């Protein structure tokens, strides 16, 4: 009897850490899988800089405090991006030329993972099989194939996305990225060897946890990871509007070839 009681106590003691953990949120289902439908947006300054950064002036003094960089804490696990030495030099060159060379300034497609934490909303459109991600910025979008994995046909800005479910988590394997997109406005970058594995997990009715493992042996010494919560737009009238930014980038891109008028 005493042994039995002791045994029970030990079992209960062993269970304490498990009980103390927040119970895993179980998302509503769509066709048996967690329903990720919704309009989501990051609420951080990762697009300005993935790493810890204080508030600072932007690259253009003409816009005053508008265009300055908001302070933010790193979204990178360990707080460091493991660049190879030569790649770090390239990152610093990117930073120096960020005003003209950041693909975001040119209104180019944002690539993965940057599309997720741009300061614009995106919509996850989850059907009974595939998912479509529709980003407000530059009408970028990508289909996530949930059928048998497809090989990337060619390198592209948004890559080739093959997804599968792991319990509560949507896992997306992204290959075929052309490596021309940056990770943020400071010039963090990768090459066409980039491989991203993303994980989307609902952690509440209006929260979606995002994780991306970034692997590119030609630029980084080891894989590294970013993570952040995404927040649902709960406004009744929330919808993806249009941010077709080509007209905003034409002066920057083609201004030098514009006919000079003698006015």
């Amino acid at each position, binding site marked *: 009897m005493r042994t039995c009681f002791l045994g029970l106590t030990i079992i209960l003691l062993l269970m304490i850490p498990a009980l103390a953990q927040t119970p895993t949120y179980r998302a509503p289902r*769509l*066709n048996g899988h967690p329903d990720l*439908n919704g309009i989501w947006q990051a609420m951080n300054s990762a697009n300005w800089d993935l790493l810890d950064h204080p508030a600072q002036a932007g690259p253009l003094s003409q816009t005053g405090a508008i265009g300055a960089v908001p302070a933010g804490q790193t979204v990178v696990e360990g707080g460091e991006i493991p660049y190879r030495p030569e790649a770090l030099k390239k990152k610093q060159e990117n930073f120096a030329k960020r005003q003209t060379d950041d693909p975001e300034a040119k*209104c*180019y*497609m944002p690539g993965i993972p940057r599309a997720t934490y741009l300061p614009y909303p995106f*919509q996850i*459109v*989850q*059907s*009974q099989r*595939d998912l*479509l991600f*529709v980003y407000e910025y*530059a*009408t*970028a*979008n990508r*289909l996530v194939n949930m059928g048998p994995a497809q090989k990337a*046909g*060619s390198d*592209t*800005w*948004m890559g080739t996305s093959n997804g599968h479910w792991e319990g509560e988590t949507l896992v997306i394997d992204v290959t075929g990225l052309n490596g*021309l997109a940056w990770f943020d406005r400071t010039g963090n970058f990768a090459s066409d060897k980039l491989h991203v594995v993303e994980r989307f997990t609902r952690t509440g009715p209006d929260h979606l946890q995002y994780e991306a493992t970034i692997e590119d042996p030609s630029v980084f010494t080891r894989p590294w990871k970013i993570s952040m919560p995404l927040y649902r737009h709960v406004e009744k*009238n929330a*919808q*993806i*509007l*249009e941010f*077709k930014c*080509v*007209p905003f980038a*034409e002066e920057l*891109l*083609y201004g030098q*070839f*514009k*006919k000079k008028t003698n006015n």
Partner: protein
Amino acid sequence: MKPLLRFLILIVALITALAPFMLTGQTKAPARPWTAPKTPWGDPDIQGLWPGNDMVGTPLERDRALGTRAFLTDEEFAKRVAFSEEQKEIDTADTVNPNPRVARGGVFVTCEQDPNLCRNGVRIGPPNYWDERGKPNRQASLVVDPPDGRIPPLTPEAQKLVADRTAARRSRACANSPGGCHDSWEDESLWDRCITRGLVGSILPNGYNTGNQIVQAPGYVIIRNEMIHEARVIPVDGRPHVGSAIRKWMGDSRGHWEGNTLIIETTNFVPGIPVGNTPTSDALHLTERFTLADANTLNYQLTVDDSKTWTRPWTISFPLKRSDDYQVFEYACHEGNYYMYNALSGARAEEKKK
């Protein structure tokens, strides 16, 4: 072991012997009428890849000689087939051809007939095999209403607007240069600037990258166009349009289901956005209808209504064919827009020569 083997052989023999009857039985079952599939949440399911490439080559407006006849006679259809055969022959021939034939307005012309088509005996523009050619069909024109298959006349105010613009363009110094005006990007079309083909243009059968994909989720239908990577999110939950101050290149779309037909109303266009070459007004209102006719045919209808621009609404209609193996490519138009650099820098270089 042996009895088991004998038993297995017997089973295999029985199946083999009965198979033809089993199959015959299947084919003889009464054909059930086709019913449109539903999504798990109960909407008609029109998802899939619906490229418009089969209809490439069908003229937008009808040949006046056909009058109100919407479909071709056998003889007229035979001509379309012959044209398509000739095109096929050209497409598969050597791309460097001393006197290439190029399709222009339903006939083929050579460089001798039109020297502007070629430079040094080589066709200007992409090689022939680049383009989608479509399948010959009997539809006389994509425009089905008015009954003559022609876009109706412009209103007097729209005529004046177009005339004024034409006059302004002709009065510019660059108007007489052989390449036309390339003073700024604003001299280029919205398509050349990689902004949009517009909603009407987005789904019209086109020479290349004609993919259309439909994805649905509860409360939404998304029409994804391969060209210029558009993804139009259409709420189908009965909510009102956004406020009138919010203007969009692809407009603001709202959908609803009537039976198996998806009806989409689109307003809030960027003022002046052209349909074809005609600038439209703030009254532009488009109504689209998607109806699944059978498992592989999605009938598309689009009514253009802008009472300040055209004297009456007009309607385009054509079938989209399902093509599960169509591959949508990333159409990184703006990212690779060398045309813009070349057109503008070329025009500046020409000016320096003078």
